[in-house]
């Protein structure tokens, strides 16, 4: 590939820049098999919306395997509510297709308009409706993978954890059979909350309501940037008519939610993190973030926060990670480790990851230098 065009595939939404030997865009399994058997180091790329640099080639010897053209949707089983699709299918294209059958894939990251199913499985993407639908791996029946020898194999639920959330270090996810859910009519309410303790108690109460499918939080700073009053805000989505905002108004609010990260990134807060903590520790973490003026939003319903750091504030990231660990939280709730968070992975977790890597990718071919 022309060296100028190659640059395009050396970056992702994390804005990290790398360098690749070449880029290949296969259209079928046979081509992927051939590429794998003939290539030493492969970095797998979906839509490149990852925020941890997972698909950024680091070594000049990496070949980027772009999965975008593996985009066939096939075998919808309406009765069992399952569908077989290729890894490069874009989530919203799938939703468009499913809406004709009154079905949907219920996991919804804010990048839903462009994200690929392969990328979602590899990062075990979470998203706005996690409070009700958890994460991507909960909606997978089986996946088809290709290993470092070019062997095509099916992996069922029991072996899924070797691939989902492993960020491509164990092999290429080619196809998947997804479980589906009936399409819902949804409404939403925007709540204004005065202080962090109240946020916790409101969220705790809302979580008991089975019609609630999303609770999204944004802090005072982000509220101000979005044109709201300088208070804390919660977007609460309902799978019935209880929300105040319906139809167009509902869609407008959700579209605004999807734009938050790019919006704060434009203000210089380009490094977005995704710690996960229990609700009763939320105030402690938030108070620390506020003391450092770090704008924060997130999927509060499941405890995932998105503090956004500018260059000047990046020095606080390791301090925040220490605090998250002290609060018994996780350093990454949804974006994965990629390149950016490698240094924060605990020794014990690293050992487990290394074992999976050795077992699934004995030729050390896929995404070398990522995660571990």
């Amino acid at each position, binding site marked *: 590939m*022309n060296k*100028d*065009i190659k*640059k*395009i*595939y050396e*970056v*992702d*939404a994390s*804005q990290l820049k790398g360098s690749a030997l070449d880029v290949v*865009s296969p259209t079928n399994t046979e081509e992927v098999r051939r590429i794998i058997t003939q290539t030493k180091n492969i970095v797998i790329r979906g*839509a*490149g*919306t990852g925020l941890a640099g997972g698909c950024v080639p680091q070594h000049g010897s990496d070949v980027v395997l*772009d999965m*975008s*053209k593996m*985009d066939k949707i096939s075998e919808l089983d309406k009765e069992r509510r399952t569908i077989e699709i290729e890894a*490069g299918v*874009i989530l*919203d294209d799938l939703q468009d297709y499913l809406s004709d059958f009154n079905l949907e894939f219920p996991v919804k990251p804010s*990048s839903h*308009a*462009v994200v690929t199913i392969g990328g979602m499985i590899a990062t075990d993407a979470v998203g706005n409706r996690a409070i009700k639908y958890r994460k991507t791996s909960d909606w997978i029946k089986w996946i088809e993978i290709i290993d470092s020898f070019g062997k095509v194999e099916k992996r069922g639920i029991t072996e899924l954890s070797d691939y989902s959330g492993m960020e491509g270090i164990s092999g290429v996810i080619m196809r998947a059979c997804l479980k589906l859910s009936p399409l819902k009519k949804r409404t939403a309410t925007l709540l204004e909350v005065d202080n962090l303790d109240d946020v916790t108690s409101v969220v705790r109460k809302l979580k008991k309501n089975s019609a609630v499918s999303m609770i999204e939080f944004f802090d005072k700073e982000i509220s101000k940037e979005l044109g709201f009053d300088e208070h804390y805000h919660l977007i609460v989505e309902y799978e019935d008519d209880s929300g105040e905002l319906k139809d167009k108004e509902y869609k407008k609010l959700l579209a605004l939610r*999807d*734009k938050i*990260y*790019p*919006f704060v*990134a*434009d203000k210089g807060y*380009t490094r977005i993190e995704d710690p996960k903590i229990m609700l009763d520790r939320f105030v402690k973490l938030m108070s620390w973030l506020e003391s450092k003026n770090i704008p924060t939003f997130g999927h509060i319903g499941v405890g995932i926060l998105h503090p956004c750091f500018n260059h000047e504030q990046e020095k606080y990231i390791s301090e925040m990670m220490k605090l998250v660990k002290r609060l018994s939280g996780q350093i990454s709730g949804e974006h994965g480790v990629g390149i950016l968070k490698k240094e924060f992975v605990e020794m014990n977790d690293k050992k487990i990851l290394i074992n999976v890597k050795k077992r699934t990718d004995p030729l050390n071919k896929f995404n070398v230098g990522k995660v571990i």
Partner: protein
Amino acid sequence: MEKHKISEADRIEASNLMEEASDILDSCIKCGMCKSLCPVFKTLKEERVSARGKAIILSDKIMNKVVFECTLCKGCEQKCPLGIKVCDAIRKAREAMVLKGKGLKSNEEMIDNIRKTGNPFGKNIGNDPEKLYCC
């Protein structure tokens, strides 16, 4: 087609235009949301044709023919959370490339045909070469 000599004025203008295109795209945060409405990306499924792809090479002031693979439909602008004027940048880059003699041969042929015959295909369907005839 005969290669024309590029004047100093055109060279300077081209470099200014590339600078301007790069400035417009400077704030791109590489989120990739612009792909969602891009008809060229949707058809080819190649990141290089997306607005993000064009932003990456144009912010480095690289002249590449990929800027011509765009319908200027502004789908990307509608989806870009930062409202980046991608089409303005693409237009400037195209202009710069034409000034530097790096435009598309097919475009030059088309313009030549219009001048000679009044239609882009070079067919003599009208009798007034000053008029543009519909195909």
